[in-house]
């Protein structure tokens, strides 16, 4: 039976018969020396396409990462949200044509009515491939087995054998099996299965070179006992294969897995009380770590984005285009990307927890909580997935067989805290608990718990009213505990971070651009108060101090030397010029006196200038003196003396200059700078208020006023209905104008800018504690994701479920946020 010719129906490019098994080349462990491949590429295989598959938690992805390094791409299967990783394979079967190694989703059986199983079936049949990859049957199937659970894993092997593809069996995690007292004899197993068997430990790379050789020599399996067609017989076949392969290898007195370290640890971690306490501690520690560590790279990113804005303005000036780039694009996108360190850290720690096997225990603990609320055990995986993003979570509900249970899960999945909410949570908890990371972490956990509670309560209501029915029991496998693979966690983190940046970043970029334009036009005239402030600031000098009479002997000597600087000096200068002009208007006027008066006016005026303007004027005087040196040395000397005298006079005054009195302070440079900054703020606020954005925000503000949101927060909330993560960037765009004019604040990073923003009255912070809590609750509960609504409509089969989801979640969010604000204020 095993040797019968195999009729195949192939869609795609598989227009050549399978090659015979290529002999392993002992001299080629990796690739030809003359054709070195880049690190991480799989080469030296004779297969154009290799499907990597196996049960969940068999170290399949670690193995893939070991083979590919970071040189892979992640892609969904068309029509699904199932991800596959693909890496290029050099030296394909037909000489020079590239192939690929595909990391398929973990499955327990190819025959299950689940999306993962269907995708694997279709990939093996050649009718499905990750997006962007050509269709075609794999030339080799690599089945990864858990060495400690060989018998159960071998059932999948039997199902793969039925496809009659060249196959290689990888028995992974041999170190775990050895700790359990189990040793696998690869040769005995190879003889029983009739195909290549390789022992590996993907975490430390043991056996990887053997695997490459085995893939190259992959052949259609010829098991010692044919694979039976039915499931019950398949179990017996798997047991027999396991016995054949492992019996001779087991050491005396070992081989029992009934009492392992994992079992002993599970007694604590799965205990209804102790396990829950440990779970809560682990989660608290996780988020505390995130808050405590991520702030450093966040600070660096803040400075980088500030510097980028400065560069944009330095390169493009202060025109509309430069403002769009600096404030709309760099400022808006930067306000979300600044949270990337926290998101990466979160993904990294979750990956580590998943790899240790603890996350499965956490799932098991949470499953106990779901049952009383009418959700099926199968719902836990979609709900867990929804913590990353609701879209794959809702798609994953396809695995739930009962329609009502599936609908209930779809309806409540968006309550789970997705990664898009994280920047908002981080922003608001940081504002509420600045410099208190522990409290921030607890608030963060509270948001997660509030979302979960809202989900299960909503599910309970739905299951008691519109979706009545019974829940089904759930069975799940708990993997053995193991040391996490940093490499796998790192690769997974990079993948997820890249997806976050690409998906969220694109939306945020375009929304920021639109919001910037709406906030910039129509342009408003500067308010009269701002104009007055600028005029007052412009008339201020550096110091307000009586000056001694100007000593005689300098270039333009006068007994009426400047008594004051600042505004008085300017007034004196104006008076001297007016006197000179009046004299010059008379017939036969004294030209020397007019020149003298004008020279005095120039001299006095210098004391009324700002320090920058004075320095520029003195420099001009010295240049003019140098030019006059050859023609009028006396005038040149007078100019130089004037410049020197001004500097000496001011320098002499400095040591005796004490703290400024209130009257003096009114005319100090600090006062002038503050006046200019306030004028900037007034103008920016006036502009925002009268822009299209302000009109929209003020129009809808009454709806959100009971929640404590002003028109600026209203704009942020409205924009985030497209995607939640847009809120942070929206707030930055909306309020950036208020801070950007302040030189000191411009150096603060983006989060601080938002923290100090004021409402329209210019006094009340936008983010008061009551408003921040209200906003936090609103974001936990509200349905603010258009793509999720679209997927809900598609997966449920009718738009009414999406509308129900929108109305239920947003209504609950509105009421809860209003209660929070009213109570706290």
């Amino acid at each position, binding site marked *: 039976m095993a040797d019968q010719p195999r009729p195949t129906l192939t869609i795609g490019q*598989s227009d050549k018969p399978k090659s015979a098994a290529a002999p392993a080349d002992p001299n080629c462990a990796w690739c030809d020396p003359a054709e070195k491949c880049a690190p991480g590429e799989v080469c030296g295989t004779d297969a154009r396409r290799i499907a990597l598959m196996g049960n969940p938690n068999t170290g399949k992805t670690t193995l893939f990462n070991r083979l590919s390094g970071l040189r892979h791409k992640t892609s969904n299967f068309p029509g699904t949200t199932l991800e596959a990783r693909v890496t290029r394979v050099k030296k394909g079967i037909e000489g020079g044509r590239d192939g690929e190694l595909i990391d398929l989703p973990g499955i327990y059986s190819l025959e299950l009515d689940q999306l993962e199983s269907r995708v694997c079936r279709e990939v093996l049949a050649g009718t499905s491939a990750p997006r962007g990859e050509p269709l075609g049957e794999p030339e080799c199937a690599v089945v990864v087995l858990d060495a400690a659970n060989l018998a159960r894993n071998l059932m999948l092997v039997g199902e793969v054998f039925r496809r009659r593809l060249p196959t290689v069996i990888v028995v992974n995690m041999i170190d775990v099996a050895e700790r359990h007292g189990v040793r696998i004899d690869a040769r005995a197993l190879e003889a029983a299965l009739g195909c290549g068997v390789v022992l590996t430990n993907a975490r430390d790379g043991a056996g990887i070179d053997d695997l490459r050789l085995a893939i190259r020599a992959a052949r259609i399996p010829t098991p010692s006992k044919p694979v039976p067609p039915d499931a019950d017989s398949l179990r017996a076949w798997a047991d027999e294969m396991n016995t054949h392969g492992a019996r001779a290898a087991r050491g005396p007195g070992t081989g029992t897995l009934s009492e392992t370290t994992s079992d002993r640890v599970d007694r604590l971690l799965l205990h209804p009380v102790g396990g829950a306490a440990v779970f809560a501690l682990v989660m608290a520690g996780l988020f505390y770590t995130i808050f405590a560590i991520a702030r450093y790279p966040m600070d660096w990113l803040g400075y980088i984005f500030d510097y980028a804005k400065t560069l944009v303005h330095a390169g493009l000036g202060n025109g509309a285009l430069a403002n769009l780039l600096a404030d709309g694009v760099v400022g808006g996108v930067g306000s979300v990307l600044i949270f990337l360190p926290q998101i990466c850290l979160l993904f990294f720690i979750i990956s580590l927890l998943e790899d240790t096997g603890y996350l499965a225990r956490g799932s098991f603990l949470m499953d106990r909580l779901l049952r009383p609320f009418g959700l099926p055990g199968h719902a836990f995986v979609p709900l867990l997935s929804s913590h990353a993003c609701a879209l794959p979570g809702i798609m994953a509900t396809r695995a739930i067989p009962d329609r009502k249970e599936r609908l209930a899960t779809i309806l409540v999945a968006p309550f789970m805290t997705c990664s898009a909410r994280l920047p908002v949570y981080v922003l608001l908890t940081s504002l509420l608990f600045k410099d208190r990371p522990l409290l921030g972490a607890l608030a963060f956990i509270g948001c997660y718990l509030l979302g979960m509670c809202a989900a299960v309560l909503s599910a309970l209501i739905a299951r008691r009213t519109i979706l009545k029915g019974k829940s089904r029991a759930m069975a799940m496998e708990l993997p053995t505990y193991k040391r996490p693979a940093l490499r796998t966690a790192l690769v997974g983190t990079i993948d997820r971070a890249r997806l976050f940046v690409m998906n969220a970043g694109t939306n945020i970029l375009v929304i920021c651009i639109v919001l910037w334009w709406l906030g910039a036009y129509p342009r408003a*005239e500067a308010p009269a108060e701002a104009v007055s402030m600028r005029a007052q600031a412009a008339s201020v000098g550096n110091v307000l101090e009586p000056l001694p009479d100007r000593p005689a002997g300098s270039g333009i000597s006068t007994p009426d030397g400047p008594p004051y600087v600042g505004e008085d000096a300017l007034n004196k200068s104006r008076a001297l010029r007016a006197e000179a002009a009046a004299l010059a208007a008379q017939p036969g006027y004294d030209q020397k006196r007019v020149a003298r008066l004008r020279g005095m006016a120039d001299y006095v005026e210098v004391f009324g200038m700002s320090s920058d303007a004075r320095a520029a004027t003195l420099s001009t005087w010295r240049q003019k003196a140098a030019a006059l040196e050859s023609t009028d040395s006396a005038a040149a000397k007078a100019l130089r003396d004037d410049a020197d005298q001004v500097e000496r006079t001011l320098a002499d005054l400095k040591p005796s200059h004490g703290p400024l009195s209130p009257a003096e302070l009114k005319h100090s440079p600090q006062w002038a700078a503050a006046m200019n900054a306030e004028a900037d703020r007034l103008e920016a606020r006036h502009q925002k208020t009268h822009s299209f954005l302000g009109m929209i925000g003020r129009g809808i503000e009454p709806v959100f006023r009971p929640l404590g949101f002003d028109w600026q927060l209203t704009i942020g909330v409205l924009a985030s209905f497209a995607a939640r993560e847009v809120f942070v960037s929206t707030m930055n765009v909306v309020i950036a104008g208020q801070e950007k004019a302040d030189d000191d604040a411009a150096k603060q990073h983006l989060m601080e800018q938002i923290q100090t923003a004021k409402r329209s009255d210019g006094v009340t912070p936008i983010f008061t504690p009551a408003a921040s809590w209200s906003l936090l609750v609103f974001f936990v509960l509200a349905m603010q994701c258009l793509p999720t609504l679209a997927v809900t409509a598609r997966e449920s089969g009718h738009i009414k479920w999406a509308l129900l989801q929108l109305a239920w979640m947003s209504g609950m969010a509105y009421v809860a946020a209003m209660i929070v604000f009213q109570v706290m204020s």
Partner: protein
Amino acid sequence: MTLAAAFPITDWQFWAVTLIALAAAAWLLKGVLPIPYLTKRAKAKKQTKRVSLTVEGKSPDK
């Protein structure tokens, strides 16, 4: 304030940022509004994929 002052139509940068904003708005609305060029045609183009059907590596017509 005059319309020209509210919208600086003589400034080329105004037109540049307006065009960029319009393009961004169109990208945003493509999933909400029925804009044929941005949705149906592009989607149909992506979904169309021609493959050759073979049995045992040979075309069934031969």
